[in-house]
């Protein structure tokens, strides 16, 4: 058994770790520090984490809904690209399968739309 | 060979009756009793028919009924009886109608509104399953009945027990038996795999096993049977169950159900695992001896009538145990005869105790005293039952006890002498029990219980008369039964086990 195919992976791993450590270490040394309210937030967009949200800890899930819907279409695109590239080779079979796939995505889309997932309020 | 499917009917009829009774409405108690009586009498008639159809000098196994069940596992509904099983089936057929009659007022006497039809349904279900246990010659079928039998008995104790501790007793009974059953299941599975995927008893008898496999499987079966019988030290459930169960059910429990244990040892442990049986025989005899002395000693010290009778049974099972493991035909026949006679005598004793307890409303010996003056007839029957229990000559248990001791004496004098001690103790506990309850000055508290002034009723007389008659008859003339038993015992010992009876003078040591 030879480990040689794994050696580059280990190297890459070490490189990535080194870069991450270097970045974290370098940022406070080199960067300017100008604090304001927005920068002290945990996230610079979306929900205010503190003080506790009004209404007994409830917080809106609107962002998550949108994000999830985005991921669904994102994945769809990822599948569409290789199919488009090899459209000729896959022929009718590929076309039918892809239509079915898009169909199922649209089933989900229709559900989200009809059940008010796209309404902001 | 008879064409008439006696055994199949004997198993299915009671179960069918139980099913019918289960659909009786609660209010139809009286009808249920009559139905159960008629039904069990029909079953009794069938047992008589089976007895007559059985040829005492013929094949070892007769009355064979055979139907396929699960071909993939080689399981069949095979019913056939040898002499030993036939005697037990006959005992069941005889006892159950009597127990139905004895139970006529049992359920109503209990507090709470308990269902009468359900009681008799359970009784009939128990009867069918017990007959099945004795009649099965397919190992899995035997196991199925062996386990299923627990369920009706569990409910009889748990739902119809008279005692505050009935739940405890029922659960203890069930768990003890189930533990034994599961040990047996492990052995049954081993038997199936090693014996060539069959459950047919006749095939398995021929099978050869390695020494270790045989010993382990023997132990699996033996533990189950020793719990059921019960042998010391697996006996602790019996006094609880016996005292908590309603007296008629307790009579059935001790008189028949426990015999499944000793029957199983004869039919399965000895025949299937002859070498292991010889290997473990000293241990089994030691346990049986301890049982004889220990059961008797504890019986002497009991204050509760039902517990006392339960302990006497443990002592009696010790006798059966040494009779079996002495490996002589004489002792073996004695043991089998003992199984029958103990069923009659202890069944009678339990039923009579039941009558007494029902009158007094208490099973404590302290609550009686001088009762013989109030109920002379009942006390007379009680006396006869007691005498039968201590094996007085002239009663049938004497014959069997004598045969057992004679057979044991031929092979091992020490064991026989120790066992004889048990007879002395038996006299002590029976006589002392009788003295404390029936003789002496009248306990004034008894006068205040109106029921204590009623002597034996016609119904009760009808229950005890056949039993007393049989005990006396078999005491003088046991030949018809011995003729049926002997060939089967002989076959078990010589064919299956491969031992021959010692010549009168030889020094037979194992």
């Amino acid at each position: 058994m030879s480990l040689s195919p794994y050696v580059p992976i280990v190297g890459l791993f070490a490189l990535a770790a080194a870069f991450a450590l270097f970045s974290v270490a370098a940022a406070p040394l080199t960067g300017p520090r100008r604090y304001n309210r927005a920068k002290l937030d945990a996230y610079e967009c979306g929900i205010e984490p503190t003080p506790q949200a009004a209404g007994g800890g409830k917080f809106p899930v609107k962002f998550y809904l949108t994000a999830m819907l985005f991921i669904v279409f994102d994945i769809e695109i990822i599948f569409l690209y290789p199919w488009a590239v090899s459209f000729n080779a896959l022929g009718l079979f590929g076309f039918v399968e892809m239509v079915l796939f898009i169909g199922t995505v649209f089933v989900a889309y229709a559900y989200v739309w009809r059940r008010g997932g796209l309404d902001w309020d | 060979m008879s064409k008439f499917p006696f055994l199949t009917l004997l198993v299915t009829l009671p179960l069918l009756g139980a099913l019918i009774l289960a659909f009786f409405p609660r209010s139809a108690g009286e009808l249920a009793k009559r139905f159960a009586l008629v039904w069990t009498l029909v079953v009794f008639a069938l047992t008589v028919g089976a007895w007559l159809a059985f040829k005492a000098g013929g094949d070892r196994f007769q009355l064979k009924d055979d139907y396929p069940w699960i071909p993939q596992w080689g399981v069949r509904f095979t019913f056939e009886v040898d002499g030993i099983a036939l005697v037990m089936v006959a005992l069941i057929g005889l006892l159950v109608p009597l127990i139905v009659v004895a139970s006529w007022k049992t359920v109503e006497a209990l507090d709470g509104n308990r269902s009468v039809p359900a009681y008799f349904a359970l009784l009939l279900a128990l009867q069918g399953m017990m007959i099945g246990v004795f009649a099965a010659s397919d190992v899995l079928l035997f196991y199925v009945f062996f386990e299923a039998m627990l369920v009706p008995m569990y409910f009889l104790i748990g739902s119809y027990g008279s005692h505050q501790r009935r739940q405890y007793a029922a659960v203890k009974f069930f768990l003890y038996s189930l533990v034994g059953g599961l040990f047996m299941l492990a052995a049954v599975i081993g038997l199936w795999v090693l014996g060539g995927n069959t459950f047919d008893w006749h095939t398995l008898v021929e099978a050869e096993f390695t020494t270790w496999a045989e010993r382990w499987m023997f132990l699996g079966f033996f533990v189950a049977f020793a719990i059921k019988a019960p042998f010391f030290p697996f006996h602790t459930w019996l006094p609880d169950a016996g005292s908590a169960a309603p007296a008629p059910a307790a009579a059935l429990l001790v008189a028949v159900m426990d015999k499944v244990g000793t029957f199983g040892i004869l039919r399965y442990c000895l025949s299937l695992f002859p070498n292991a049986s010889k290997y473990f025989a000293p241990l089994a005899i030691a346990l049986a001896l301890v049982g004889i002395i220990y059961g008797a000693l504890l019986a002497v010290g009991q204050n509760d009538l039902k517990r006392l009778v339960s302990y006497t049974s443990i002592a009696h099972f010790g006798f059966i145990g040494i009779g079996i493991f002495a490996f002589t035909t004489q002792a073996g026949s004695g043991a089998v005869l003992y199984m029958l006679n103990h069923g009659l005598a202890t069944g009678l004793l339990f039923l009579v105790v039941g009558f007494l307890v029902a009158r007094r409303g208490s099973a404590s010996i302290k609550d009686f005293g001088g009762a013989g003056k109030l109920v002379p007839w009942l006390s007379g029957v009680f006396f006869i039952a007691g005498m039968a229990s201590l094996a007085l000559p002239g009663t049938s248990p004497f014959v069997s006890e004598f045969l057992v001791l004679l057979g044991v004496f031929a092979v091992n004098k020490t064991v026989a002498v120790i066992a004889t001690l048990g007879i002395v103790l038996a006299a002590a506990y029976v006589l002392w029990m009788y003295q404390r309850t029936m003789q002496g000055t009248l306990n004034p508290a008894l006068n205040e219980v109106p029921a204590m002034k009623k002597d034996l009723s016609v119904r009760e007389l009808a229950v005890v008369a056949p039993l007393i008659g049989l005990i006396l008859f078999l005491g003088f003339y046991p030949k018809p039964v011995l003729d049926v038993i002997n060939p089967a015992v002989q076959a078990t010992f010589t064919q299956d086990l491969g031992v021959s009876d010692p010549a009168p003078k030889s020094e037979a040591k194992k």
Partner: protein
Amino acid sequence: MTFKLPAIDYLALAPMLVLFGAACAGVLVDALVPREWRYHVQVPLSLVALLASGGFVVALANRKEHVVTAGSAVVIDGPGLFLQGSIVVLGIVALFLVAERRLEPGGAFVAQAAVVAGSEADRKQMRKPGVTEVYPMMLFALAGMMLFCSANDLLTMFVALEVFSLPLYLLCALARRRRLLSQEAAVKYFLLGAFASAFFLYGVAMIYGYAGKVDFRGINEAVLGSSNSKTLLLIGLAMLAIGLLFKVAAVPFHVWTPDVYQGAPTPITAFMAACTKVAAFGGLLRVLYVAFERSSWDFRPTLGVIAAATMIVGAVLAVTQTDIKRLLAYSSVANAGYLLTGTLSMNRDGLKYTMFYLVAYGFTVLAAFAIVMLVRDSDGEATHLARWAGLGRRSPVFASLFTFLMLAFAGIPLTSGFTAKFGVFAAAVGGNMTWLVIIGVLSSMILAFPYLRVVVLMWLSVPGDDTPTVSVPGAFTAAALFVGVAMTLVLGVAPNQALELVNDAGAFLR
């Protein structure tokens, strides 16, 4: 660049395709059909889909032509079809429970799961009809389970695992009552399930590292002939096993089971206990028997210890439970141990009887949960065991049925519990795993105690003021209950047909 298009045998995939299609249609129904009509459309749609799927399974089974299709991602062979058929049939019975709306206005499911538990809005939705998304989710889960049992490579298997797990996580959170418990169950199940999936996926990567293949046949060849170090194989197999054992709820990966079983809506608990068990063991069987059969020397000791621990821990912890759903959860853990015992025998009997056990257990557990659904008071289901005291007096019919089911769980003969246990134990003895059988028998003894305690509570205790009533079941629950109990009886008394089926199923196609 050239492609070879995978040949797809659509008929072979039809059982799954029908369900996936119907599930998508179900989502559309929820999107487009007015709210009050959804229930009346969804239930028939799901039922028809399941029946059609079952019809295709039967047709395929009759075709007797075993194929590897969809680019060798899916294999349709005898055992796979048997497992698919079992999942469909058990799924139909579970669907009956899910569709029940008579017991509680609106059914067992909440109207809007996202509403904060205990808030004003939550109280307002108490009487609104439950969500109808449960039906498509159930169909997705069922289709995923079927794919899981007939996947031919580890990646397809992983996808199937996720397809049937994700709907289950959601379904757990939808209980109408005790919202917080239900949500807790869902979160726990989801987090731990995701963790287990990660293990599974990591294991797939390791195996790929070892074998260079992910399909079972390739792995099998690699195990036989590869010169690579076995370290990767063993690590991979261990991680794969963790993922699978989590789903089957084997110790020590069982900790989610009681919480999830208790918190999930009871129909879903029943669904998980029956169908997920089949799917998970179907997958485990295929992985072990097809891909890793040749390294059985490596995994049998370890998995044997896990099986033993599963049986014992499940049984012991079941003893201490006071909630019927938790009790059944631990019983399900212990049953996973018995199934593992059958699985590890690694012979044809092991495969056959494990599949038989899955079906037998599935029906019994569905019926048991059906009765749990029926025992209710104003707060919904009364699951605390103390509340079941005296139920036998209140409603003898249901108490009798439940007693029967408890006896089946305890493995008493004439119930499917006995035949199933006999099968797996016999297979294990045949596969030289006798020590596991002995532990199995011992744990059965322990496990009998909690079952018996329920029976004692129902029959032998006096009903209190707060003994809940048993609701009259709607047609759906009645049907589920009837099928479950009837199959428990049939598979116990006459298992011939089912044994014939598992026998005909033959071996896995490699």
